[in-house]
Structures are given as C-alpha cells and as structure tokens.
C-alpha cells in the first residue's frame, strides 16, 4: 500500500469567515490519481462543503485552474504522485474568492470583452458563399494561440495583473494576438489601438510568468511582444 498523503486546502466562505483557513485532509492516493480526482474524493466522502470548479477532466474546458504547490495548473491533468506527500491547493491568486477554490472570474471576462475578441472583417466573404482561402503556412501562424482555453492560469500568475485593475493581462492579450496574427482578420489597426496602451502590451515587463504557467504551453509573452513591436513602430512612424 502506498503511503497516505496530506492535502492542505484553502477554505473560505466570505459570508461566514473573516479570514481564510487551511484544512488538511489525509488520503490514500491511487495510482494515476489526479488532484481533481482527489478533490472529488474529499467532496464525496470526507467534506461535502468543499467548493471547486471542474467539468471536462481532460484539460480542455479550463474550469479547474488552481494554485497547486505554488504553481498555477489544471487540477485535472496534475498527477498527485510527482507532487510529494504534502500538497497545498489554493485558489488562483489575485482574484477574489467566492468560496474555497472558486474565484470570481467576472473581472477576467470583462477584460476579455474589451479587446473585441472576435474576427473582424471588412470585406464580404466570397460571393460563392464558400470559405475564405487561407494557406497552410498562414493557418500555422495562429497554431499556438488558438489553443487558449481561457483558464486564467496565466492571468493570475502575472504580477503586473496583480498591481493593476486596469491591465488587460496575458490571457486577454493572447486572445487579441490570436486575431492580430490571423491573416483573415482585418481589425488589426483598431485592435492594436485597444491593446497599445499602458493598460495593454506596454505594461508587459517580459517576466514570462504567463508563458511558464500556461498549461497549454502557449508562448504568450511572444505574442504580447509581437504586438508591442507593431504598436511601438506605429507610434514611431506616426501611424498610431
């Protein structure tokens, strides 16, 4: 039998608790068990008041971003075994807590909506009604950035996000870059204006926290800097 492990979980119901508390649960891990499965085990068998978000359990829905042993990760794809015998699970940092591991995402979604996060086209689609053509190499340009699942792991890992309510943050900027880099999109100049301010790409200090903590390994800092180059060039040449 494997040794038991200790899961220490951040607990807080803001209606009742003035401060968070950390509660420790001892469990017998099963081979291949993930952090998410351990949370379900606790919810079902030990403490039914525990709150967390989850759905797909296969790293695609983005619900279960959490701060696990000091790093933002998706609980569903994080195996218990490599984490050792003492595991600390906290909500994503820098976001208000609704209950336990559930954070208030409303500021995140508000920022997301600010960058006009949809394809902007000026020209009508082909008269045939068929698809716009896009070459394989052009399509490849957005390969990494379309994989974003909006889990907010990068957003809450960004120290600049923590300092400023107004900063759009890496996830939202990555979404903007997904369109800036899409050869079908014609909203480039407008979108660069939306992100080309102190609250946008200019605030990024290239600390790389976002890129390091992205569960999908999206080179977020790269995208931000690509946009920053365009913005700075636009300002230098008087086009922005």
């Amino acid at each position: 039998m494997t040794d038991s492990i200790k899961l220490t979980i951040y607990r807080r119901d803001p209606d009742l608790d003035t401060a968070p508390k950390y509660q420790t649960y001892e469990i017998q891990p099963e081979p291949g068990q993930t952090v998410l499965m351990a949370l379900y085990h606790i919810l079902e068998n030990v403490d039914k008041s525990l709150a967390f978000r989850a759905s797909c359990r296969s790293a695609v829905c983005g619900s279960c971003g959490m701060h696990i042993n000091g790093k933002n990760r998706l609980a569903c794809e994080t195996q218990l075994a490599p984490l050792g015998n003492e595991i600390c699970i906290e909500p994503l940092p820098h976001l208000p807590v609704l209950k336990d591991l559930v954070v208030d995402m409303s500021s995140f979604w508000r920022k997301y909506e600010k960058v006009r996060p949809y394809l902007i086209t000026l020209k009508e689609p082909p008269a045939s009604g068929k698809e716009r053509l896009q070459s394989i190499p052009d399509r490849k340009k957005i390969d990494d950035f379309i994989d974003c699942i909006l889990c907010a792991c990068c957003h809450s890992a960004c120290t600049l996000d923590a300092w400023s309510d107004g900063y759009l943050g890496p996830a939202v900027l990555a979404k903007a870059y997904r369109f800036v880099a899409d050869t079908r999109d014609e909203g480039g100049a407008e979108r660069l204006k939306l992100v080309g301010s102190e609250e946008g790409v200019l605030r990024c200090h290239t600390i790389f926290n976002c890129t390091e903590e992205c569960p999908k390994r999206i080179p977020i800092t790269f995208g931000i800097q690509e946009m920053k180059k365009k913005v700075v060039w636009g300002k230098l040449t008087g086009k922005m």
Partner: protein
Amino acid sequence: MLKHQVIVIGGGLAGLRAAVESARLGADTAVLSLLYPVRSHSGAAQGGVNAALANMPECKDDSPAKHAYDTVKGADFLADQDCAEILTTDAPARIYELEHWGVPFSRTEDGRISQRPFGGAGYPRTCYAADKTGLYILHTLNEQAVKLGIKVYNEWAAIALASDGALNHGLVALNLQTGEIASFAADAVVFAVGGAGRIYKRTSNAMQSTGYCLGVAYKAGIPLKDMEFVQFHPTTIVGTNILMTEGARGEGGYLLNNQGERFMQRYAAKAMELAPRDIVSRSIQIEVNEGRGFPEGGGCVHLDLRHLGREKILERLPGIRELAISFLGIDCIEKPVPVQPGQHFIMGGIDTDKDGATILPGVYAAGECACVSVHGANRLGGNSLLECVVMGQRAGAAAGKFVKGKASAIKEAVLNDAAKKATAEVEALLKSSGKERLVNLRDEMAQTMTDQIGIFREDKAMREALATLHALRVRYRNVGVDAKHRKFNLDLLRTLELGGMLDVAESIAAGAVARQESRGGHSRLDFKTRDDANWMKHTRAHYTPDGARLTYTPVTKTKWEPEERKY
C-alpha cells in the same frame, strides 16, 4: 423577476448557435448556463464536423444526398429521412458560416477547408481543425455571442419549467454563485443542455454532462424520444475513459488485439477500423469477452498509431497525443494506447420536430439533448457538432420567430407558482435529515447502467436494472444534503442533478427492455436481428411518478428502403 423573450439553457455549441440566431432575428435573447459557455463539453469534441463540401480530390462527387444516405444507414434506418436530409443539406452553409466567423479549420494545399475520413462515411467528409475542432468552434461561437452582446447568466442551474400545460412561461433556476433561486420569464425557452454520460460509470463525457436537465423537460410533460439508443465510443482511454478521437482511425490508426491482429477484419472487412461506432465498439467488446483483449481497466485493446509517424501525429493529432501522455504516460508516437469502449453520446433526447419545437408551445431543444431524429439508432462520427450548428440555428430561428411581434402571453402567476414549488423542494433538501447519500445512489445507478444497459443487453439483466432504478428513485426521496452553505453548494447541486439523472436513466432502461430487437446502439443477445416489421418506430417516454409510460411514433421514410448494414 428577470425577463427575456428567448432564454437558451446551455452555452455549448447548440445553445450558442441558437442564441446567435435568435439575437440576429432581433429577439431579446439570453443564455443561462451551468458553466461559463467556453467550459461546455462541446469543447472536448475532437475529430471534426461533417459536410459534403467536396474539397478533397477523393470526394469530388460527394453530395448532401450521399451524406444523408450514410447518415440514415449509420442510423440503422431509424433516423427520420426528411430530417437527415435537412441536416446534410444545411451542413455546407453552416460550416462556411463558421469559417467566416473565424473557426481556424485545417486547410488543403489550395487553402480550402481540409476534410478527413470518418467512420461510416463514403467520402472524406469531416471538416476538422487538427484534433480540437469542438474547442475552436465553441470559442468562435462564444466570440460571436460576445459580439452580439448576448446576455449570459453564468453558473445558473435550471431546475424547473413554468408551464401551465398549454404554454410555457419561463423557468426557475438556481444561481450557483449565490445560492439564490430566481424565476425567469421567457416567451420561448430553448434546451441545449448536452449529453447525459454521467448516468454511466464508463463515459467519455464531462463531470457536468449529467443530463439532469433532460429531466426538467421530461417532468414538464415533454416526451423523451429513443432514449434506449446510447452510443459507446470505441476508443476511450482505459481508466479515465477520456476520448481518443475517431480521427485517429480516420488518419489510418489500427485497432489491435492481444495477438497483434487487426481484428476488425472479422467484423467489417471493407471499412475495417472505420466502420460505424456501434459496430466497432461491439467488436472490441467481443474481443475482450473472448479473451483476446488486454487486462487493463477490465479489458481493452490497443489503438496503434506508430506507423503514422511523428510528423503526421504532431500535425493532425497533437491533442490526443497530449492526453495519452498526461493521463497514461504513453506517447502514441512510440507505443500503442490501451483503449476501451465508453458511453459517449445519447442518440435519444427531448422529442422535437425538424425546427427544434417540442409539443409544449414555447419550448424548443437542440443538440445532443434533443432528438429530431437525425441519428436514429446510431450516430456517425462528425454528425454531432453538425447537429449542434444546424439544429441550433433552426431552433434559434424558430424561437426567434415564435416571439417576434407578439405580445407576451406570460402569466406571472404560473411563474410564481413554479418558483415557490422549486424553492420549497430545494429548502426541503437542505433541511432534510434523510438517511440516503448522494454518492451511494449515484454510484449504484452508474454501475447498473454500465453493467446492465451497456453495449450488449438481454432481458433479465435489463429488468433487474429497471427494478434497481425504481428502487433508487424511491430511496432518492429520502436523500439528505450534508452541506448547508449557500454559495457554490456542490452537494446540493449534485443532489438536485441526481433526481433528474434517475428519471432519465429509467427512461433509457424502460425503452431498452421494451424494444425486442437489435438496432444500432441497442444490441440484444436475446433478439439479435433488426425487426423492421415491428420495431421501425420511435419510442416516446412520457414521465409519470412511477416511471416512463411508452408510446411509439412512425419513422419518416423519403428515399431509402431499409437494407442490411454491411461495411
């Protein structure tokens, strides 16, 4: 009281597509979703979406009619043929529209949408974006909803409809974030609540694909159709049952037994691994039952992709490679992946017509939760995302037109009554000192469904399952909720869900016991053949407190006579 002309329940592909359509028609439209829309399980769809675009050299003479025929044959002739034709005729326009909205489809050399072969299809017809097609379409539709300014009620669970029997007046829902219960006045409600996989133990579906919300429609008097037809996907990862896309076989992957043999040659010599899912799942189960499987996870076979080579796997199947590495520690470039069939889809659902309308005026349904029927007894891979966008659009249009230019006929008294009743039920659950516990009831239901209403079925086991489900429904009346807090009370939510799940499970079992034939996903050891003379008809389950009451309706035939399904 909150009020909208149209409220769509569910923010997945079908729900968002319906909401976009209804909003475009000018109706005041809102989405009410248990999850943030981008968290919906549509996002886990991998392989692609079918449309006869004829973009590949091998499919120059493909057409919507051929797509419809494949769909009807795949459905084992239980699909309504007029509806299958609508599905495939609307398909190209819906896919091009998605491209215009920004879906990053994979491309052909000449820049068009690329297509791959899928099971049961005569041509490479499945449009795809690597192996993350659902994720990209879901995010694109969410972007369109943002663009149109559609109001979304995030993390609300619909718990009851407000109907007076002649007309629906809205719904009652629980706000998960606050614990508050509120009523929503709505002239039209569209159900787009997805699948019910969690009724089963082994399922590819998300934790939140409980199907409880089908129970909300069912309890309001709307029949559930063809519920006995459940799809088991042949290739889910052993243990977690996470999906390995059919695209893996579409790209040329093999299924191997413990002799290293491509056993599909015994079951579908021509189509091999690309036979329809019901056939491949049964074949795998036979291999396992007859001792030619591997022991992991109670029996499995191998999905072997090694011969595809590193480059093709990284380009076409990067997502499932990551999944197998994360959840099994196996890199499919170097090793085969152990897979087994798992519940994946319900062909049945809320009974609708070809525009998503139910028998209750003002209520519509679309996507997996609905049954039009386009999938009949077995759905083809690539047709579910298609159903979401085609039927989502049609249901959204129908709802939008239903409310347009009409004075609202909402009776507040009906809504208030429904809210009072739902609130009393929730409060009673929170106060209950009932002895039964959620986890026991839920596990027993799921195990029973997997063991006794699974891939192979027979009378005795199914009757026992039905009796177990009846007993569970009785025990559920004595269930207690231990967690008493208001915000994000998962114990409460999951207990509420279980009530609906048990009703839905019972409708599956009842339909399955009654149907004395084998057709598509319903495969009986005691009635091994299809019986068109007696059973070419749809089952309709009507809710009663004692269990489903079954009636039957005819299947619509247009062009195709039933034939033997050979692949």
